[in-house]
């Protein structure tokens, strides 16, 4: 099995899907000549030409809306939004149009498109360029939102997203692009809407998605190695739909849970996770569900402040320890 980067997995999948289906094309800012701000699309303009790899003006609303219109005609645009922060400019086209067209017209016209975009802080990009606002999409019926954390999942979910007839927000993360993982020769499309128990365990459930799922794994490994704590990790993979069953099943076994998320705590993705677990595993839960999330501030540029504001393996470990103490399984 090849070990490749998350970036490479995305690149390869885009290329394969374009080879397989003429209707798939890429559209976005700087994806062609510049080869992508984060180089996911490197080489694809040369291989497929301007028709299939379309550089756009800086006009997020205009080009995302154009992708929606093209998808209404049955094409399968894969749009790149340079970062999720800039997607706000296109939000009306995504929420009021892409997500509504199928229902609002009584099921006459579907919108088979994918919007790839990275979130993430930690690069000292400051308050406007470091946000994790996948919530804005996960909240919206009519959209599907996936958030792979590994190269293999990136491939499987991107395949599924391109094959899907609904608009899919495909969440990436700046800090994941260079991470590596095993990817089998052939990867089947994943089933959208399913979480994965990506690491089985018994003592506590740690829930994450995107970058924080990988942090959850690091923490779980270390807890096992150093303290013999057996943490189960659930990687959400899909934010909408949300696979509550898998979460609740895990917590019914472990009786406690910590959520690790990169976005802000209040009203963040973790709020729904915590609410769902507190509801579905009500009788099994031995301590409140704990959330580890970003401090609720406009993220500062200066490194010490940025570091303090963002969740990390350390803060997650603290929360796990405190939760295990609360349920009486530690010290």
């Amino acid at each position, binding site marked *: 099995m090849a070990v490749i980067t998350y970036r490479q997995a995305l690149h390869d999948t885009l290329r394969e899907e374009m080879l397989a289906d003429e209707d798939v094309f890429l559209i976005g800012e700087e994806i062609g000549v510049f080869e992508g701000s984060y180089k996911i699309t490197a080489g694809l303009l040369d291989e497929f030409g301007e028709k299939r790899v379309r550089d756009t003006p800086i006009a997020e*609303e205009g080009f995302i809306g154009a992708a929606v219109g*093209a998808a209404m005609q049955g094409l399968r645009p894969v749009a790149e939004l340079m970062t999720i922060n800039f997607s706000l400019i296109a939000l009306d086209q995504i929420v009021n149009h892409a997500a509504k067209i199928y229902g*609002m017209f009584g099921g006459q*016209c579907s*919108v088979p498109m994918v919007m790839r975009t990275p979130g993430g802080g930690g690069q000292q990009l400051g308050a406007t360029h470091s946000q994790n606002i996948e919530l804005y999409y996960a909240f919206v019926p009519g959209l599907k939102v996936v958030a792979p954390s590994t190269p293999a999942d990136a491939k499987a979910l991107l395949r599924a997203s391109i094959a899907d007839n*609904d608009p899919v927000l495909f969440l990436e993360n700046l800090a994941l692009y260079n991470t590596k993982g095993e990817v089998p020769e052939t990867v089947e499309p994943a089933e959208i*809407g399913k979480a994965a128990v990506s690491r089985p365990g018994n003592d506590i459930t740690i829930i994450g998605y995107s970058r924080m799922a990988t942090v959850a794994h690091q923490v779980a490994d270390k807890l096992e190695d150093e303290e013999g704590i057996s943490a189960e990790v659930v990687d959400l993979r899909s934010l909408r739909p949300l696979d509550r069953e898998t979460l609740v099943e895990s917590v019914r076994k472990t009786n406690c849970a910590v959520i690790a998320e990169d976005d802000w705590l209040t009203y963040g993705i973790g709020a729904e996770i915590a609410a769902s677990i507190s509801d579905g595993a009500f009788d099994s839960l031995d301590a409140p569900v704990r959330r580890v999330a970003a401090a609720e501030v406009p993220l500062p540029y200066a490194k010490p402040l940025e570091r303090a504001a963002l969740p990390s393996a350390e803060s997650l470990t603290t929360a796990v320890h405190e939760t295990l103490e609360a349920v009486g399984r530690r010290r």
Partner: protein
Amino acid sequence: MAETATRSKPASGGAGKTRRNGTRSSGKRVQTGANNVFSGESPDTLRDYFRQMTLIRRFEERAAQGYTQAKIGGYCHLNLGEEATVVGLMSALRRSDYLFTNYREHGYALAKGIEPGRVMAELYGRTSGTSKGWGGSMHMFDVDSGLLGGYGIVGGQIPLATGAALAIDYRGGDQVVMCQLGDGTTNIGAFHESLNIAALWNLPVIFVVVNNQLGMGTTVEKSSAESELYKRAVAYRMHGERVDGNDVTAVNEAASRLVEHARATGEPALLETVSHRLKGHSVVDPSKYRSQESVDAARAADPVATFRARLIDSGVLDEDGAAEIERQAQADADAAVAFADDSPHPDVSTLFDYTYATPVANDSRRLPADPVF
């Protein structure tokens, strides 16, 4: 009203698909508007225009009535005063051409070829409606006739229409997209972004600004720094022109020419039609803000009445013929109401049918009283 063009008149058809020519020279066309001698259109065509315009008029009157009777809910924006524009534009399109409009689209739906009953049924929120009752007045859709949607968000249709034209270009089809929008809508960002993209990529889309001189209560002069809206095409090296929207044949001539030019060359264009809104912004708006002058001007220019007079003056129609058309239009509008009223309401069991086109695991299908677990 004078008709002017910022750039040279696009030659219609013939030229083959060529790229946008950024250096086209400026030009100006002036042509008299009212009291035109009809040029080219057959009497049958002219009578058909009148028939369609009258149908729209009667249909909209019945829609207003249905709204007052609370048979129709939500917002209800009518095409009263815009019948010449609507019919002139729609008769420039093939059925296979695509149309995107704003929320003021009942007339367009009729003129693009959807049965009046289905249009009225949508207003009544019935399963036989153009959007099965899911869309209402602002959101009609019909693949067969090429109406790719009325949209309630100001400017929302413009990027979509541009994208449909991109798809045509991508596949090498010969359809043209028409994107209707209002005068007030030229001030929103989506207009700018989309016209730039359409011109840059040479996409076959005609943007039509239906200038009824008001966006709700705001005049064009109070909302657009360049109030001759067709001139805004210049910012994209796009052809722009203005036509009298009260003159169905003038609208049709201009629209046909631009549509066929786009079909032949892929070149987009901006067409501005100038007419009046006869009533309020929507049925509930008493338009108290409107001056008597503006109301009088709108009434005097009533495109249905003036076209009727012109047809009779020029012998295309006699009083009886006109009355017969009007009787039939009334009957059609009444029949549409009856059809709508007889059609079933959607069943609550269908509430979760149209969230996703591809079924998905763990889709939420809860009613408000349902627990999560």
